[in-house]
């Protein structure tokens, strides 16, 4: 165990603390529910702490911990711990109101749509489109080729755009089961690749 009073240990803790909000945001995007997402972040912090000697100072703490979070998420998904339930308490902010639609699109509609995407496309889009990682960084986090990430992001965007264009975004309390089935169907592919 590292000496907690050493500069490295102190800066590790400080950096780890600093990325917690980002871990929560990534986890929330992946699994939808705030409570489960926070459980996942706690699990990630424990794992990161235990592995802190493998962290190279000067590299991105956010990228390093995202790898840990993602792996924990995939493992938990395989154990069927997550349901793609959506937390309805999340603020119903109006995102956009395209003409000819039954109603405005809320951020929560957006999130539900995200949850219907295959896990690998969802995480790629979250990393690049929400987390602001470059394709290269996202590829490193997911352990795949840059081209693969680009393709996943492109497909994810196309699917969401299609949903928005056709007004088929999953709305409140209608699609949680659908989302869950979609996620579970793709899970085997993710775990194999």
């Amino acid at each position: 165990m590292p000496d907690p009073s050493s500069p490295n240990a102190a800066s590790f803790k400080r950096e780890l603390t600093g990325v917690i909000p980002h871990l929560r945001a990534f986890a929330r995007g992946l699994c939808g529910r705030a409570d489960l997402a926070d459980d996942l972040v706690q699990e990630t912090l424990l794992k990161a702490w235990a592995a802190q000697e493998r962290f190279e100072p000067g590299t991105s703490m956010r990228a390093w911990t995202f790898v840990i979070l993602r792996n924990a998420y995939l493992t938990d998904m395989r154990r069927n711990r997550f349901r793609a339930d959506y937390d309805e308490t999340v603020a119903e902010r109006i995102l956009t109101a395209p003409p000819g639609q039954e109603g405005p699109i809320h951020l929560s509609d957006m999130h539900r749509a995200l949850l219907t995407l295959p896990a690998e496309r969802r995480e790629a889009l979250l990393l690049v489109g929400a987390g602001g990682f470059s394709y290269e960084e996202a590829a490193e986090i997911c352990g795949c080729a840059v081209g693969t990430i680009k393709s996943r992001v492109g497909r994810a965007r196309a699917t969401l755009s299609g949903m928005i264009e056709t007004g088929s975004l999953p709305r409140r309390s209608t699609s949680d089961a659908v989302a869950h089935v979609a996620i579970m169907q793709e899970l085997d592919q993710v775990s194999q690749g």
Partner: protein
Amino acid sequence: MTDKKAKNLVSHSSAHAAKQVKPDWANGLRQLYDNVVAEPLPDAFADLLSKLDSKT
């Protein structure tokens, strides 16, 4: 390792359609993320780290 250019090099054929509506929802995706980042941090996290720190 930033490659801003790569973000514009979406060569996928379906990406063209995506581009047209991107302003609408791309911002929403970012908002989903940023909203959570901006939330006050539950005490549980600081407590956990202090606990881990005192064990080492």
